[in-house]
C-alpha cells in the first residue's frame, strides 16, 4: 500500500474524528440559523425537533398582494443541497386540495409554484434564504411569462387593473371565473 500516512503527517490540519451528523443535516442547521428574514416572512416548525419539515408564511407589506398571508410548506430530503427543497403553497396545514387555492399567475390551484430556482436553476450554492426571498419576490412581481394559473397570467398581461381587482377579490375569499379562492387577508 502507498504510504498515505506520511503525507498526512505533513498536513497541519490534523484529522480528528467528526460526529455522525449528515452533511445535509449540518447544512440545514447552517441555512436555518443564518436566515435573515424581513418581518414579512416567518417560519413555523410543527415539530421543532424536525428541521426538515416546516412552513413559511409571507405577509407582503407592499404590492398587490399586500394584506394577505401566504403559507408554503418546505420538505427537505437527505440529499439536500444536491436536490432543492420541495416547496408548495398551502393555505392551511392540511393537505386537502380545496384548502390552498390562491389567485396567482405562478401558483396553480394545487399549490405548485413556478420558481426557477426550485427546479431547473437550483444549485447547491443556493440556500433556504435564497428560496424564501425568491418566493417573496413572486408576490411583489407576479410574472405573466411563466404561468401556472393561465387565466390569471392572461389577465395580468391584458388588463392589469382587472388583475389587481381579481387579486383583491380572491384574497377576500371571492370567486373568480368559477373558482372559489381561499380567504388569506389578515389585519
Amino acid at each position, binding site marked *: 500500500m502507498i504510504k498515505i500516512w506520511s503525507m*498526512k503527517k505533513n498536513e497541519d490540519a490534523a484529522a480528528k474524528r467528526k460526529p*455522525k451528523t449528515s452533511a445535509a443535516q449540518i447544512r440545514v442547521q447552517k441555512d436555518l440559523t443564518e*436566515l435573515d428574514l424581513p418581518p414579512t416572512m416567518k417560519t413555523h416548525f410543527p415539530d421543532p425537533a424536525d428541521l426538515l419539515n416546516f412552513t413559511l408564511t409571507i405577509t407582503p407589506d407592499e404590492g398587490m398582494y399586500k394584506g394577505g398571508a401566504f403559507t408554503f410548506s418546505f420538505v427537505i430530503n437527505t*440529499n439536500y443541497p*444536491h436536490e432543492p427543497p420541495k416547496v408548495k403553497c398551502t393555505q392551511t396545514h392540511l393537505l386537502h386540495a380545496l384548502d390552498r387555492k390562491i389567485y396567482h399567475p405562478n401558483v*396553480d390551484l394545487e399549490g405548485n409554484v413556478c420558481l426557477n430556482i426550485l427546479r431547473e436553476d437550483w444549485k447547491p*450554492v443556493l440556500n433556504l434564504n435564497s428560496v424564501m426571498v425568491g418566493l417573496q419576490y413572486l408576490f411583489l412581481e407576479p410574472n405573466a411569462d*411563466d404561468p401556472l394559473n393561465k387565466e390569471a397570467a392572461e389577465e395580468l398581461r391584458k388588463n392589469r387593473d382587472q388583475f389587481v381587482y381579481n387579486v383583491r377579490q380572491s384574497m377576500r375569499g371571492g370567486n373568480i371565473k368559477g373558482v372559489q379562492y381561499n380567504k388569506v387577508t389578515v389585519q
Partner: protein
Amino acid sequence: MATAEVLTNGNSTLCDWHDRYYHVDQILDRPGPRTDPSFMAGDGVKEFLRNQCKILVIGAGGLGCEILANLALSGFKDIHVIDMDTIDISNLNRQFLFRPKDVGQPKAIVAAEYIMKRVPGVKVSPYYGKIQDKDDAYYMQFNLVICGLDSVEARRWINATLVNLVDPENPESLKPLIDGGTEGFKGQARVILPTVSSCYECSLDMLNKPTAFPICTIANTPRLPEHCIEWASVLEWPRVQGDKKMDTDDPEHINWLYTVASARAKEFKIEGVTWSLTQGVVKNIIPAIASTNAIIAASCCNEAFKIATSSAAYLNNYFMLIGTDGVYSYTFEHEKRDDCPVCGGESLDISVPRTWTVERLIEMLVEKQDIQIKKPSLSTASSQIYFQAPPQLEEATRPNLEKQVFDLVPDGGEITVTASTLPFSLFLRITYS
C-alpha cells in the same frame, strides 16, 4: 469461455499455477523509473496484493461487474461486494456476470459466485443489502474501497463515512476511496484520500444535476415526451392520488403514469411516450453504455492496483472522460475545500468544567482568539442545543442556555457548531474536567 475443468476448480485457494501472473509480475518484480521510493519489488508486494489486501467493491451493476472481473484478474484475492439490487432483465446486455436464469436474484451474490467459479483462488464475499447497514468496524477491515454506484446519496454516505473513519492515532484508518461514475458516453474516475485530498462532497457542485424542466413548461407548453411524463408524475399524481406516495419500483404506478402521460401526449400531438421512457424519466435512468463502463472500471482498477502495490504513481486526483464528441479526457487535481461540510472545517478537542452551562460554553467560543465565532448555533447528532435563529427555534432552545453542558452531551460527545463566520462548521469533542 470457461472450460469445465476451470469451473470445477471452484474455491481451491492454492491454485496459482506456474506463470499465472506472468504479465502482472513484470511490473511487480522490479522498480521502474517512476515507481514510488517505498515500492518493495518482488515477493513482499506480491504477498500483500494476493494474501493480505482486502478490497471492498460497492455496487455490482454495470461498473461493478467490470470492476470485480478486473480486480480478480489483476491478482486481488480477497474481494468483498455490496449491492442492494436484484437482477433485472434489462441489465443483461452489459452486466456480463448475469444470465437470464439469474433474473430476480441479488446482484452481489450472483456476481460473487460467478467470479469465484471463473477465477480460481479468488474469494468474493457478497453482501446483499444497503451500505448503511454496515458499521465503522466493517469498513475498517478494508485496505481500499472502490465505488461503482449510480446514486449520489449512496456516494455521499460512503464518502462521509470514510472521512469520519480517519483516526489520527491509527494510520490504518485512512482508506483510499476510488470512485467511478458514468453517464452515457461520459464518465469519471477519481482517487479520494479521505481528509488528505478533495472528497466527494467537495465537488458536489460539479455534478450534472438531473434535467429538470420548468414547471410552467410542463403545465402549459409541453413539446417533448419527457414534458408529458413529468406532467403526469409531478402535477397529476399528487392532484389525483393525493397523499399516496409514488413508488417508482411499482409497475402499477409506472403504468398509471404511462397512461396519463400518453393521453397528454396525444392531446398535444407529441410522439415518443413509451412505458420504458416513462420509467426512465421518473427513475432518472441515464442510458448506460457498456464500453464507457469498461473504460471507467478499468481506470478505477488500475488505480486500485497502483495504490495497493505502490508500483506506479496513482491518479491525482480526477480523471474525466467525455466521449460525446470524439474522445476527450482530462486529468486534474480537484482541490479540497475549506468549506466542505464533510472534510473541511476544523475539529477541536476541548475540556470544560463539569459545571459549565451552555451559555458559558458559547461565551468561551465567542471569546476564543483562535476561532472567533460570532453567534454560534450548536447541536448534537440527535438534538438541538442552541439555535440563534429562526425565532421559534431560538425560543425553543433558549432554556438550554442555563443547563449544564454535561446534561446534554456525554463525556467524549460531539457538538456541531455552525455560524456565519465559519467556512462551514466546527466540531467540538467535549471532555469534562
